[in-house]
């Protein structure tokens, strides 16, 4: 766990992530400029840092209605603007980038932030970027596996000798600068399905699992598959952290939380995925055994503690800002997390 900067005795880590979406506010119909959105994300990270939140990450999506395509650049600004919070990608699409350049960027972000950077590598759920960046979608899986392996090799070895199919070979290559502690925590991003989790287990790397909604128990199977796969390859599952990532919204009552959040999720998903979020499914989101963390602060505390009990995970990261949520609502949520939710979670999950 220490290898990945996780100290289990301090309890469950609480983080915030943004996909970097740049969507209109469906209530007003207005969309802020890309400049405002990027400034907002940096400010959001600052507030999270000040509230004592453990982690903040920014995603990479190359398509309309997103603003953080150059997510490493945004993370550099966040690194400079914050003091204690861990910063990472959620996720970096390693398949369509050169791992050397990605590593250089994140090692630099690590140095700017004085050792707070992590890298979460995914393979994209929206695949438009393959064409944009000149890759063949048919190589989807191979590109990811090969580039992810190279990324890890660069992290493990200061002098790299490597050859593969999708990039020119490296001979006695030094990838510089090196991060502050010599290595970066590198995670694999996994959708909710066991198939992808098993691959993370085989690779012997920490897993960040994203989930939209549904029963907590369904995702337990994914986490179990990951840990079984780790074990099958001779790794000790207790040494590998698991993070979960999903929707979060706190308001005075769960009904108010549903009201505040629904139009943003529904309209935002229509624009980015082409289908809205069914109300029936969303309404089930407030159930104590539903993985979405939507409700009153007390309900959310109980939900997160329940998830922790079931998953035994080390980090939960919250997506609050999807779909043009007004900034004052994000501020309010951070305030609630900092003053009510975070202290309660630490109190119940940290070793006394």
């Amino acid at each position, binding site marked *: 766990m220490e290898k990945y900067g996780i100290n289990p005795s301090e309890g469950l880590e609480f983080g915030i992530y943004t996909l970097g979406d740049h969507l209109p506010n469906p209530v007003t119909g207005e969309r802020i400029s890309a400049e405002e959105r990027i400034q907002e994300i940096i400010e959001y990270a600052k507030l999270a840092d000040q509230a004592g939140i453990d982690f903040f990450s920014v995603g990479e999506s190359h398509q309309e209605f997103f603003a953080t395509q150059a997510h490493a650049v945004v993370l550099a600004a966040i690194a400079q603007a914050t003091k204690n919070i861990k910063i990472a990608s959620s996720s970096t699409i390693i398949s369509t980038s050169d791992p050397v350049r990605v590593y250089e960027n994140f090692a630099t972000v690590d140095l700017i932030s004085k050792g707070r950077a992590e890298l979460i590598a995914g393979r994209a759920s*929206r*695949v438009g970027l393959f064409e944009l960046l000149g890759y063949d979608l*048919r190589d989807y899986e191979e590109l990811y596996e090969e580039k992810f392996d190279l990324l890890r090799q660069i992290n493990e070895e200061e002098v790299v000798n490597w050859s593969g199919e999708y990039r020119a070979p490296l001979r006695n290559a030094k990838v510089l600068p090196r991060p502050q502690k010599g290595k970066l925590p590198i995670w694999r991003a996994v959708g909710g399905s066991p198939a992808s989790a098993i691959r993370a287990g085989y690779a012997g790397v920490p897993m960040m699992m994203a989930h939209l909604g549904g029963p907590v128990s369904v995702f337990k199977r994914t986490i179990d598959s990951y840990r079984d796969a780790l074990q099958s390859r001779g790794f000790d599952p207790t040494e590998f952290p698991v993070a979960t990532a999903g929707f979060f919204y706190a308001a005075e009552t769960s009904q108010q939380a549903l009201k505040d959040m629904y139009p943003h999720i529904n309209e935002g998903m229509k624009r980015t995925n*082409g289908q809205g979020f*069914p109300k029936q499914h969303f*309404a089930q989101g407030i159930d104590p055994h539903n993985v979405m963390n939507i409700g009153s602060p007390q309900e959310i505390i109980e939900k997160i503690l329940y998830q922790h009990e079931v998953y035994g995970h080390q980090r939960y990261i919250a997506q609050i800002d999807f779909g043009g949520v007004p900034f004052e609502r994000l501020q309010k949520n951070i305030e609630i997390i900092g003053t009510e939710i975070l202290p309660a979670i630490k109190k119940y999950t940290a070793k006394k």
Partner: protein
Amino acid sequence: MKIVALSGSNVGSKTRTAMNYTVEALQEKYADTADVTLIDLAEYDVQFSDGRNYLEYEGDTGYVTKAIMEADAIIIGTPIFQASIPATLKNIFDLLPVNAFRDKVVSMLVTAGSAKHYLIAEQQLKPILAYMKAQMVQTYVFIEEKDFYRKEITSDDVKFRIERLAEDTVVLTETYAKIREEKEAAYDF
């Protein structure tokens, strides 16, 4: 309401002929309420599904997938080839997301060279539509080769059944929309 009449084959004329009758039946009776678009796959150059989100397809493929996703109801016309639906129609399903027909009504019209194919829609088409979350009009119109003569339907029985299919599609779409509206309002968020 938006209705897409999808003629699912790029071979032959019988399915298209029957779809013309269906569109006419809709336009005659529901000119004020139904906005009908006929998409005959024979007239479009649709690529094979490569797994991307339907929003990311361009050209004819993008047009067809988006038109279907924006529709409230879809009337699928299909011939039977080799005891199944044609590849062109299956490709349309493959291009769409898993829950593509959620909150949509889908009805079916089947043309076939033999009465032996009657249950193909029941056994092969309906399971796909159910998986994709369609509200189905359970009764479909099955038309045999002998009911056509030179791009016209000669059987009054078939014409009546097409009229009833058009009516059932519209009525069910309106009904489900109303139920959904009431239910969503009850959630109060």
